[in-house]
């Protein structure tokens, strides 16, 4: 099928995302979020997220259709995030997608949320050069991937051994009394500050694994530094701490991604996931890629965090590659490995 119309379902966390994609073209991207209901808990409460997905499902599908000017009967295939993520949340999307696919008589593709964070870039910058190095930096994951074929061959070169990059932003935001999720407020605060505090760069020693990350020590270092200042009665400059923390994260991420490109002789890097929305990460990645002769691709901010279009984008890629659809007994896998693109 040359240019399939794919309806994508995303419910792995707190966003109900429904997207419509034709080929590599984004038609619509409807989102309902329960973010505000989780804020007072300082994290996502799975049951609240799942309840919200159920309520939002059918209306969000229709918002996506209306925005695209499409009808259900135009849909050629359905794609859904079947992992990784919160089981109860995932299952609302999986069940809905299975029912839409059955009733429409079209194939169903259960896809990997993490591969979808990478695939979304094709909606803005066209087909990915293959092989590419992909860096996935989100709320639950931080990995460097070698991608010979996004539709079926993704190799993990390294990953975080403790916290994900987004998780580090969220935890440091709490230390600084900034709201949840912490990425956007830290990004904003950092723009007013100077990266004057030397926070540690995890796993950057000569003997450390080249492509693995560690952000837990950094988070602890920030917490200790803030505590020490407060104990001494010294005013803590939130912008300076935010900028210094962010600089440490960005420095490590970009250095390791560029190194992976060099080591593997790959001159294309794509960055995906919520942390890819970070303005400093985007700027430093661009500088370092330019210096190393690497072509950098990053989706626009809106498409970095969870959405349905990214799932439709990967689904579309699978349809066009002739990958077999999922079996009728598709379920959810909360810990779906990153190298399983679809199942």
């Amino acid at each position, binding site marked *: 099928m040359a240019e399939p119309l794919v309806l994508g379902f995303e419910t792995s966390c707190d966003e109900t995302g429904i997207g419509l994609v034709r080929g590599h073209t984004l038609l619509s991207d409807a989102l309902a979020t329960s973010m505000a209901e*989780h804020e007072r*808990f*300082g*994290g*996502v*409460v*799975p*049951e*609240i997220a*799942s*309840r919200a*997905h*159920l309520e939002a*499902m*059918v209306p969000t*599908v229709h918002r996506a259709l209306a925005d695209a000017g499409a009808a*259900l009967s135009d849909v050629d295939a359905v794609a859904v995030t079947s992992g990784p993520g*919160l*089981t*109860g949340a995932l*299952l*609302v999307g*999986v*069940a*809905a997608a*299975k*029912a*839409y696919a*059955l*009733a*429409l008589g079209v194939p169903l593709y259960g896809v990997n949320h993490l591969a979808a964070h990478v695939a979304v870039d094709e909606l803005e910058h066209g087909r990915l050069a293959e092989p590419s190095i992909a860096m996935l930096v989100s*709320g639950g994951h931080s990995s460097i991937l070698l991608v010979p074929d996004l539709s079926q061959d993704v190799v993990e070169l390294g990953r975080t051994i403790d916290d994900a990059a987004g*998780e580090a932003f*969220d*935890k440091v935001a*709490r*230390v600084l009394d900034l709201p949840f999720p912490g990425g956007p407020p830290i990004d904003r605060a950092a723009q007013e500050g100077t990266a004057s505090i030397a926070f540690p760069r995890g796993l950057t020693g000569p003997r450390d694994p080249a492509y693995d990350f560690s952000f837990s020590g950094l*988070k*602890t270092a920030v*917490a*200790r530094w803030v*505590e020490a200042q407060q104990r001494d009665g010294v005013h803590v400059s939130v912008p300076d701490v935010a900028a210094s923390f962010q600089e440490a994260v960005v420095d490590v991420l970009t250095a390791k991604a560029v190194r992976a490109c060099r080591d593997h002789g790959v001159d294309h890097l794509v960055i995906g996931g919520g942390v890819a929305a970070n303005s400093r990460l985007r700027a430093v990645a661009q500088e370092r890629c330019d210096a190393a002769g690497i072509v950098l691709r990053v989706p626009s901010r809106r498409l970095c965090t969870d959405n349905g279009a990214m799932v439709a984008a990967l689904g579309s890629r699978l349809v066009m590659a002739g990958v077999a659809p999922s079996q*009728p*007994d*598709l*379920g*959810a896998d909360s810990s779906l490995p990153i190298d399983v693109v679809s199942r």
Partner: protein
Amino acid sequence: MLTLAIDTATPTLVVGLADGDRVLAEAGVPSGTRHAELLTPTVTDVLTRAGVALADVGRLVVGLGPGPYTGLRVGIVTAAALGDVVGAPVHGVCSLDAVGDGPRVVVTDARRKEVYWRAYDGAPLAGPGVGRPEELDLPDLPVVGDARFAERLGRGVAPAEVTTAGLLRAVPAGPPAPLTPLYLRRPDAVPNVVRKPVTR
């Protein structure tokens, strides 16, 4: 009119196809926590056995629980999506209404050592509620449902499950109401927050 009935409020997922109140085909699949995997294949199977195309279904009925939430939502969102495509109304019913018939108390497994219950004396008399079996003050009526709770209730429980006929009987008159699950418990009773706290 052809009705497709779905219930996922108990460990046995139920799908039935009826013409008026005559059940043409029905499946009760002991699926435990695999409702999401097995529901759509079971719908396909029941439609095939009844010799009916999904497009010919004129209305859907779905159990709104009470029942374990994750499985419950699978049935409700599936019915909502099927109804959306087919253009058929989806009627939500209390799943307990579809267990047994006549004057009775229905009990089903609510996990966490509790039961969901509802009492009927011709019409619904009390409930639906959730509680520990030994602490419930249930009306003096025959108890039906999940017989594993007999000992803790101190009463005999006649085994009974959700049936298609029961789901059809339970449909309230009038146009369908929003498909709001009967959760009976508040979500923040379990603030099982995903992100770990900052460890110092």
